[in-house]
């Protein structure tokens, strides 16, 4: 019944099947929206946050989706600025994933703040010295860029494209996309970085604080670098999942291999920097403030050295090595393991940089503070995931997202 909207020559499941799937995920969305309503109506007392945990699950989710959404800007940068042309076959999807991630991040922020109706004060009464101000400005601007990048893809829908104006608009936007992508890369550099800066400038929190360059602590650069490194992992992971769900090959192996390789080298360089940063922090910064790093990893029921090892070695060095070596990179199973580890690693890094900071006592007579989120927090954190699934399903169904899909799914497969 919706065949008129489906891209020409593409094979899609029946509408009822599609509708049922959407309904199931939609139920999760409704659950999240209900929790969101509760929070807006009754206030943040619906969460388990407290005065020790001003930043909690949501801020982690926020940082995590922005980190994994970094695939959009980095792929865009490679495609439009560095002219890595193969990536045109995955750029649409990278943009959609980025759009989902960033819209989710903005939504989470709107739930997270105590006075959502005053949220715009962050722009109006901006304190330019605050990393969060930088985040807010760049994040919103970059979201505008993502929307601009997403629009041509939407306009390429079979029906929309029949409208001459839309057709021309899409065409023209493609034409100047490099300008948008460059602006996007510039904005992303700053907001990814300033999200890292959020933690790094907290000089009252020895676990978070880092020295740095001018006004930017090292976490600023590490966050940007890690988003660029692990973002493509997430793009590849979601692509892989979409392929598994649709049962079709959507992107050619050479494109996947190329992006994996770039991601691998980014991860390796990032993780070397991260290791140097950690060693410097552990041996110079922190002891200078009177702390042993063991203080941050002991005397509590959750945070131990395991989290440091998992983040850096298991989910950093290992995926990096897998992805830079041709033999392992081109092995689908190992590659999948690597990109999954990578995504976990960057999320774990954001967790550490939000929640572990809050948990650690700084005053010598204070104690560790652990926290378990309320169901409302969990529901609102799951909400973006469900929303993302729906958006991907809808865009995949109605938009020509994967340029190679038709070619890869002819009745008789051809090899190139």
């Amino acid at each position: 019944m919706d065949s008129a909207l489906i891209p020409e020559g593409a094979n899609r499941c029946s509408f009822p099947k599609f509708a049922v799937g959407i309904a199931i995920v939609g139920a999760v969305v409704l659950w999240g929206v209900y929790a969101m309503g509760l929070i807006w109506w009754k206030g943040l007392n619906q969460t388990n946050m407290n005065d020790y945990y001003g930043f909690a699950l949501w801020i982690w989710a926020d940082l995590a989706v922005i980190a994994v959404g970094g695939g959009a800007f980095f792929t865009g940068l490679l495609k439009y600025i560095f002219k890595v042309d193969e990536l045109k076959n995955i750029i649409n999807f990278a943009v959609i994933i980025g759009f989902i991630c960033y819209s989710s991040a903005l939504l989470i922020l709107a739930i997270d703040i105590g006075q959502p109706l005053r949220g715009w004060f962050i722009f109006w009464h901006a304190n330019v010295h605050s990393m969060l101000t930088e985040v807010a400005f760049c994040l919103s601007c970059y979201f505008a860029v993502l929307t601009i990048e997403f629009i041509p893809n939407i306009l390429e829908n079979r029906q929309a494209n029949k409208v001459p104006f839309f057709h021309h608009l899409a065409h023209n936007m493609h034409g100047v996309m490099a300008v948008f992508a460059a602006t996007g890369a510039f904005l992303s550099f700053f907001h990814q970085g300033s999200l890292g800066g959020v933690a790094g400038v907290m000089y009252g929190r020895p676990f978070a604080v880092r020295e740095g360059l001018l006004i930017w602590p090292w976490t600023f650069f590490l966050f940007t670098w890690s988003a660029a490194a692990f973002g493509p992992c997430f793009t590849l992971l979601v692509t892989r999942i979409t392929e598994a769900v649709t049962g079709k090959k959507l992107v050619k192996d050479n494109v996947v291999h190329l992006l994996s390789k770039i991601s691998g080298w980014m991860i390796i360089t990032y993780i070397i920097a991260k290791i140097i940063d950690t060693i410097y922090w552990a041996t110079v910064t922190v002891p200078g403030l009177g702390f042993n790093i063991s203080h941050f990893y002991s005397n509590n029921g959750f945070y131990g050295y395991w989290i440091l090892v998992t983040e850096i070695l298991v989910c950093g060095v290992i995926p990096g090595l897998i992805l830079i070596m041709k033999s392992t990179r081109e092995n689908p199973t190992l590659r999948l393991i690597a990109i999954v580890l990578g995504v976990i690693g960057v999320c774990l890094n954001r967790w550490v940089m939000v929640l572990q900071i809050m948990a650690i006592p700084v005053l010598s007579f204070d104690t560790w503070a652990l926290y378990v989120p309320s169901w409302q927090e969990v529901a609102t954190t799951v909400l973006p995931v469900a929303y993302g699934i729906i958006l991907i399903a809808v865009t995949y169904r109605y938009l020509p997202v994967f340029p190679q899909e038709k070619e890869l799914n002819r009745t008789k497969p051809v090899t190139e």
Partner: protein
Amino acid sequence: MKVDRRSFLGLGLGAVAGFSVSPVLLKLTDDSSIWTQNWPWTPVPVDGEVMYESSVCSLCPGSCGISIRKIDDRPVKIEGLTEYPINDGGACLHGISGLQYLYDPSRVKTPLKKNGDKFEEISWEEAVSLVSGKLADIRNAGTPEKLACITDKNTGSVSGLFKRLLKTFGSPNFYIMPSLESYLELTAASLHGKGTTIGFDLDNSDFILSFGAGIIEGWGSPVACFKANASRKERGATLCQIEPRLSNTAANADRWVPVKPGTEADLALGMCAVILKNNLFNAAAAAGFKGGFNKLTALLQNDYPLSKISEITGIKEADIEDIATQFAKAKMPVAVFGKGRGDGSQSLKELVAVHTLNCLVGNINKEGGAFVQPVKEYLEFPEETMDDIADKGFAQAKLSLYVHDLFDKVNASSQPVVEALLVYQSNPCYSLHDTKAVKQAFGKIPFVVSFSSFMDETAKEADIILPVHTFIERLEDIPSGAGLSKAVVGLSKPVVKPVFNTKHPGDILILIAKAMDGSVAQSFEWETFDECLETAAGDTWGDLSENGYVILSEGVPKIPHEIDISFLSKAPDSVQPTGDGDLLLIPIDNMRLPSAAQAASPFAVKTVSDEELKGKDTVVEINPKTAKGLKNYDRVTLTTPVGTAKVMIHLSEGIMPGLVGMAKGLGHSFDNKYVSNKGVNINELIGPVIESGSGLDAAFGIKAKISKA
């Protein structure tokens, strides 16, 4: 015009775009943020002219001067009154929270009569005629002694009027709740003769030996004690604190000596023995001892050898000797007694034993020592008119010596020994040991009248509640006491119009008396309480009303005193805790939780540590050695011979192994969600233990068991 899908879409998009660029959105955004800044449910305090009024706080026996900041007619803040002779500017948290009592949700707003299980509102006329009618019936039946009364103190005009009512009615059964002042008078009566009291010159002493007196736990006049303690630090005076738990006082002291609970009297006597043995006593003072100095000396030397005392008290011999020697050799030593706040159960043996240390070193009526002098009286009521019923009834023996014993008598008898009970400014159903028994006794008394501002545990047991003004709403003389070295009477003034339909307790008594006949009505000839106070205060009134206070005595009393040690010479026994548990439950007094008549305010409850109260659970303190694998905030069942309670555990190195410390002042059960239904009332777990020889309830704790819940 034909509207097809496309043009409809276009129109829609156009409308959205047009709306977006119009100022409407901006305006709405701005309005919504302004709305969040003026939510109608967030109160906006009304501004007005600032005024300060001074008064005196009567929430506790401390009797501090207070300054009340008002905005027009509205009191907004209570602070300490500078240059007031007791507190000079400082204030305790309860006084500062005073306005929360004024607007307390659990206040009784109008007179109430119990009908079945419920209270119904009645008019003041009906209330007064109900009470006076019932009292007249008792009097006319020829049993006026069956009217009893409990108030918080012996002094002051309101208590004076209650006493006067009882006397002219024909009843000797006037009781006061135990307080530090009552113990001081009792100790003084035993050693120095009736009608005297003791004050401690903590401001000047250079060695304070405190037997568990919670000098910064709310003992005595709290703010004065805090000040004395701060000045002690400046003067370099020593505080040696003897008690089984690291209280705040112990923590603040120069030396903390943990002692086995209940052996303080033995320790004090052991120290007396050391002083006698080493000839460190003041011979001139000792020469004046009556009641057998030699007998006492012999007794101490035979029965209190250092080794035995060390074993009993758990304190090293060398330490006992050292402390006793330091105490005796100090220039201005003073030994202080009254465990905790000093208003809980006390043993007369212990009080007298400690004060004997003062007598031995000869610091009575010396600077920095203990001041012994007659209780200062500044009120003079006109002579009562006594008719035959009054004379006959008043001449009868009191039912019991102390208030807890009164309820035992009521419970023990099948006939009503008390026909009617008046309760004022006290909460025996909460603050006496074994509250269940006390409530049972209340049930057996046919007619209970509560003069209370709040629907507290005792008011709930009453048949009639006559709501009284809070201290912020009424005129009253507030005499100091509570171990201060000076005697001051202050004037508490109404600084706000009564918030509810309440009356001054003195006015209520005058109304009730006038509604009766005979000697009662004739003895209450004033129109109002104000008039009564003014005439009774006589010469003092001028200064009192003008300055807000009158200093009745100050400095070292230049009067002779006698010392009679016959009570100790009789070698009284020490009390033992009841029960057979392996642990001993002891109460903890803490400045932030009042334990007597007045429940804590919401602000005060907010300051209570999560090591004492967590959610709705009392947290008890035990030494990790006693914990046997229990962890912080584990839930356990605490069982004593009197009751059981579910509590949580807090492990503390500051309490002696084998003890369970529980905060006093929790577990209220009235209608104030900020204060009530939080934790356990320790008095539900501890029963009275009567000390032979004094008749006091001297239970310092009770044997207890804990088992994992």
